[in-house]
């Protein structure tokens, strides 16, 4: 089971680098979507011994939300805005790749010093989560197009979701649901606002959004 876990998480981390490296928004969106799907499958792996219907339900919901709904919305927004590329980012692609890689390594390194439970000590679970969160931040800080920032936010959420799976045994299902719901709605609302901004400014370049300052 540990191997499947590591495999999935490893792939997800790979998609981090893809997300950091690409300048094409469609690729970015897909990368994030696939990452979401991969992570969405994790509960099945983790709780393989005690599968029950609501676990499956959660998995389906997650996969549906992260893999289908959100990418669809973002793609729509992107089409509406008629942009396919992130030009002149705040942090260039090479630097962000390097930062991402460094972050991943750091994550793995730090994990050694963290007091972990045996079942989490061996595998990529914790470092993966950290790497995703760092990647999310790099995207949020480094990109200037609204869509890429949303993607960054998604990666961040993925990372936290992964971290959340540490507690999957203990947190009640209701809470899981609530959190999931919130996240989805949140992204949904963000999508709407993105759309509105696109209409108001007819661009998604957040560098245009600096009217409000001292």
């Amino acid at each position, binding site marked *: 089971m540990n191997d499947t876990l590591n495999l999935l998480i490893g792939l997800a981390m790979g998609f981090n680098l893809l997300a950091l490296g690409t300048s094409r928004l469609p690729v970015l969106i897909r990368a994030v979507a696939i990452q979401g799907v991969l992570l969405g499958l994790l509960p099945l792996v983790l709780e393989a011994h005690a599968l029950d219907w609501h676990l499956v339900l959660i998995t389906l919901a997650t996969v549906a939300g992260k893999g289908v709904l959100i990418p669809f919305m973002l793609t729509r927004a992107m089409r509406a805005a008629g942009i396919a590329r992130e030009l002149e980012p705040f942090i260039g692609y090479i630097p962000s790749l390097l930062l991402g890689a460094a972050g991943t390594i750091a994550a793995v390194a730090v994990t050694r010093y963290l*007091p*972990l439970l045996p079942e989490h000590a061996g595998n990529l679970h914790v470092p993966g989560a950290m790497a995703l969160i760092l990647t999310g931040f790099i995207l949020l800080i480094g990109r200037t197009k*609204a869509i890429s920032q949303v993607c960054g936010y998604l990666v*961040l959420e993925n990372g936290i979701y992964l*971290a959340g799976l540490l507690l999957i045994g203990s947190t009640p299902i209701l809470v899981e649901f609530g959190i999931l719901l919130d996240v989805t709605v949140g992204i949904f609302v963000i999508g709407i*606002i993105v759309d509105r*901004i696109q209409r108001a*400014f007819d661009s998604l370049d957040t560098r245009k959004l600096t009217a*409000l300052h*001292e």
Partner: protein
Amino acid sequence: MNPYLLIIIPLIGALLAALWPYKKSRPYFLPAVGLAHTALCFRLLAKPPAVDPVAWLAFDPLASAILPGVSLLFLICGCYAVSFLRLKEQDNRVFVPALLLVLGLLSAGHQARHLGILWIATEAVTLACVPLIHFSGTPKSFEATWKYLLVGGTGIALSLLGSICLGYASLHGGGSGDITFAALLEHGPNLSRVWVLTAWVLLLVGYGTKMGLAPMHTWKPDAYGESPGIVGALLAGGVTSVAFVALLRIKSVVDAAGEGVVASRTLLAIGLFSTLVAALFLLRTRDFKRMLAYSSVEHMGILCIATSFGGAGVWAALFHVWNNGLTKGALFLSAGNLQRAANSSSIDNVRGMSKVLPRTSILFVVGMFAITACPPFGPFFSELLIVRTGLGAGHGWAIGLFLLCLLLAFFGISRIVFAVVDGRPRLYKSNPALRKESAGLILPPLILLAASLWLGLFTPDILRDAWSAAVLQLSPMP
């Protein structure tokens, strides 16, 4: 059952309001629901229900120490909203239900005794505020909303991460990973220190972002500046208090884990930093609604400083939450009046309002003196208590810096307020209907100020006891 009522009533109200067909009469849902909610709150305050320790939601002492104030603020803002929305031609089919939704989720947040529920409520409030902030529908308002969403979202994400870390701390400490505060508290000493501290940092930043502590305050001036005054009042008085309650509950856990000293130190540091940054911004900003935002940042900082003193400091902080909420509310509402009349909120365009809106101007000036801790208004007493506690605890330097910041803040605020009120008014293009001072627009801020005054002069014992009880709940005396 009662605690759930506090949440359910507004939600049902929101549903009904959303379905209600008539634009004109829809706003009346706000005072109606607000009244019911306030009545219930104060009844619960008077007769505290027995708290089931393992309940996820309960009207426990901490909730009873703050929620009534928020509810009162909402009631009065609701009354204001009626006359406010009458002036607006936009449709309020979203606005009104969203406000009610916010109230319901606020009640949930204040009563949440489970980290997860707390997080869900806070996040939900954040989302429910979105339509309120871009109510005016101008591009600027969308920009503000966007920043609010992303910065706030990031913060909220961090607090989720923090909650997870706390849960993991209990797991690692051999606990069940149950993240109800009751469980965490009783499990306190065994929690894994590293994870507790990590959790503390993440949660402090996360909920600090919602409170608007520097340097995570950046969304605040934009959101407060672009949203209607009434929304600003609720954000500054209600939403921030949820985040503060969250921090209080979490700090009690950290204390139980034996890391109280570090937590207090970080709180003091971030509090002083916020106060200082806010004071410096206040000296420079040229917009009286953004000024209120920075002032709110300052007061969040003050809350943190007070909390870091522990014991009596927390008591003073709870007192200050009430004072700040009510006074800030009055300021936001009167600022809203001024902005509508002058249809600008920059002191470059707004002058001599004492001749255009005499009553509102008086309210604005009085509110200014109230918020800058001039007696006999509430903030004076709470801040004096904070200073006294700090000096008693031997934080001389912190208090010195704190007072300096208060002074600078006073300079900044008074500078702007007098610039707006004094001088010769210019001719405003806004339609004269917006320049009428109907009772519906004057009374609510007046009542809020009166409440702040009354709270300062004759703090009712029932509140004093509620605050003491809350302090006891947070730091149980061994």
